[in-house]
């Protein structure tokens, strides 16, 4: 672990049940119980946390500075050392990990949340695209993912039945995940945008995730089996789909190399692949062997709360180490259309 100045581990993870609609809940009401649960798991109080960082999106909330309200859920009084990324919570975790590496904090609370139900998230995500040349055409998120799936099929790397198998396996696995939105047998369904069928696409839903990080011996005191972050890195690619090979994810491969994924085998992978076809791309980029357990939580095909789904992958990976179910896990988060930006973390349990 000499790669970084300090050993840092995920010592607790909590998430909400991910639901199609949460009309009766404000974001604060969604976030608070999850924060209470994750802190309770460590015995720490909000005021004892060294640094807090969150991830969310104003465009999902439909208002500017939406995260100012959720800060109420943290209980930021007396004032706290706190920051926010307008990104998936996986990147909030990265910022918090850096903060602990500086030595300015020994613990961090990381959370993220998203409510997709108030609008059409397919349409909302078009606002992520080049505002002058692409966004005015309103190409929706499923259509862009379908372009990627089509490129994969045309290149001979997969076919529709293999994609269907990814969806079926994910929702099978989710049967054991009480928080998942879609569980058990889910029909492959009709085409949404060819070649993607309903079963190849993530559910639209609302949800929250939270993680507590701690350094060194403090992590050992707070958690029986800490999930050490032995490597973490993230990389971005060009925005324009025309400038990318959609059948590959060089940013994932590069982040994985920097995070040390290839230094030793992993037994489990939690991949943020909202579309079945994206799991194919990520497996290749990460060089996952056939015997690696992929998305035992059900992954984003079972629950994909925007802005939280990536942090959930890290949390699920850590929770397996906490339970002793895995020893070396790769966790992945993505942002942007067709896997434009990717974060990769390696989590390991103590050798025993």
């Amino acid at each position, binding site marked *: 672990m000499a790669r970084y100045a300090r050993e840092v581990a995920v010592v607790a993870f909590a998430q909400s049940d991910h639901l199609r609609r949460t009309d009766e809940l404000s974001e604060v009401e969604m976030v608070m119980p999850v924060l209470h649960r994750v802190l309770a798991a460590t015995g720490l109080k909000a005021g004892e946390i060294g640094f807090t960082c969150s991830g969310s999106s104003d465009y999902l909330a439909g208002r500017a*500075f939406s995260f100012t309200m959720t800060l109420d859920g943290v209980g930021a009084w007396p004032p*706290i050392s706190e920051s926010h990324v307008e990104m998936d919570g996986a990147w909030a975790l990265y910022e918090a990990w850096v903060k602990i590496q500086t030595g300015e904090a020994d613990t961090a609370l990381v959370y993220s949340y998203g409510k997709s139900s108030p609008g059409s998230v397919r349409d909302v995500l078009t606002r992520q695209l080049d*505002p002058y040349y692409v966004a005015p055409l309103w190409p929706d998120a499923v259509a862009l993912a379908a372009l990627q799936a089509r490129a994969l099929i045309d290149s001979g790397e997969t076919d529709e039945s293999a994609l269907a198998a990814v969806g079926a396996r994910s929702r099978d696995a989710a049967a054991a995940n009480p928080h998942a939105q879609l569980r058990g047998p889910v029909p492959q369904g009709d085409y949404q945008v060819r070649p993607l069928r309903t079963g190849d696409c993530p559910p639209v839903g609302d949800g929250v995730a939270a993680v507590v990080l701690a350094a060194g011996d403090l992590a050992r005191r707070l958690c029986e089996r800490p999930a050490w972050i032995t490597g973490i890195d993230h990389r971005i690619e060009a925005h324009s789909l025309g400038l990318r090979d959609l059948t590959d994810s060089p940013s994932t491969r590069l982040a994985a190399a920097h995070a040390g994924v290839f230094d030793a085998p992993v037994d489990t992978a939690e991949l943020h692949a909202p579309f079945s076809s994206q799991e194919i791309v990520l497996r290749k980029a990460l060089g996952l062997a056939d015997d690696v357990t992929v998305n035992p939580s059900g992954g984003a095909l079972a629950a994909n709360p925007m802005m939280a789904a990536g942090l959930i992958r890290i949390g699920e990976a850590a929770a397996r180490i906490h339970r002793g179910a895995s020893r070396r896990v790769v966790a992945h988060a993505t942002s942007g259309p067709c896997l434009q930006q990717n974060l990769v973390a390696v989590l390991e349990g103590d050798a025993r």
Partner: protein
Amino acid sequence: MSKEPVAIVGIGQTKHVAARHDVSIAGLVREAAARALADAELTWADIDAVVIGKAPDFFEGVMMPELYLADALGAVGKPMLRVHTAGSVGGSTALVASNLVAARVHRTVLTLAFEKQSESNAMWGLSLPVPFQQPLLAGAGGFFAPHVRAYMRRTGAPDAVGSLVAYKDRRNALKNPYAHLHEHDITLEKVQASPMLWDPIRYSETCPSSDGACAMILTDRAGAARSPKPAAWVHGGAMRSEPTLFAGKDFVSPQAGKDCAADVYRQAGITDPRREIDAVEMYVPFSWYEPMWLENLGFAAEGEGWKLTEAGVTELDGDLPVNPSGGVLSTNPIGASGMIRFAEAALQVRGQAGEHQVPGARRALGHAYGGGAQFFAMWLVGAEEPTS
């Protein structure tokens, strides 16, 4: 455990104006980044990571614009982080970038903040109606004016103090080629005769809406040794947050601001900020926030901030110059405004501030705040490498 010392070796800004119709958002940010690289005499290939910040996405109508801006900022194949902490974001962004170097995760980092307000309308971007939640009362002025009134009532400050600040900052802006407002015919009488917008805040005591970007290159000790120009060194940096609304909140002098300043001074070994700090770049979007923040930041005792302003202490030639650049009152690309404060503080201690240079400035404070006066970000920079 020791942190890596962090040096600012490149600074770039755009000329801030009401509307940059000649460039896209990508063109705007690239201009500032290219100037920062040129200042540092580095190339895109020397940059290990990019940290970008801006205030809400609604201001340009682009969701998570870092995705679209990756190409323009040379970030392809690199790590890119997007920070958003409301009005304090420019400062927070610089601090996140600084931490990457301090933690020895990366050696040389490009950090940038921007706003292209002409792409939409900031006041309405802040006023989207959400059921059962308090909107920001038609722009920020409506939110902050009552707190200015509370300050005046609490301290007995005379009505003229606000206009003194605006008159000073607008004159300072004339010496800053990048400032948005260059009001060559400004007089104190004109400020005082300007229309009342949100009583007691007059039109000339408010910030403009600007298009602009600011970028900095941060690097480690080895990078600073290679730098052709003097570096500014980070001696302390901190962020603090508190809730928007709660019983007991002091809107005039928020606890989060006091705690943030105290943390920065502790890191930098400052015990008497009024004597030990040579220049302050303070986030003053409405003129009365200068005396208010003078108290909050520990430059004056409670109730005494307005006396420093009235006595000319905060003038460019006073003994505690505040906003020699002209400040937010003269230039306000919201998402970039905090970073401009941080960058201008660095320019001062590098001796690179041109006509608005404070002679002999060795230590300067950059300050930003946001939300309902609840998010604070500050750094203290010095001309010399920190000793601890």
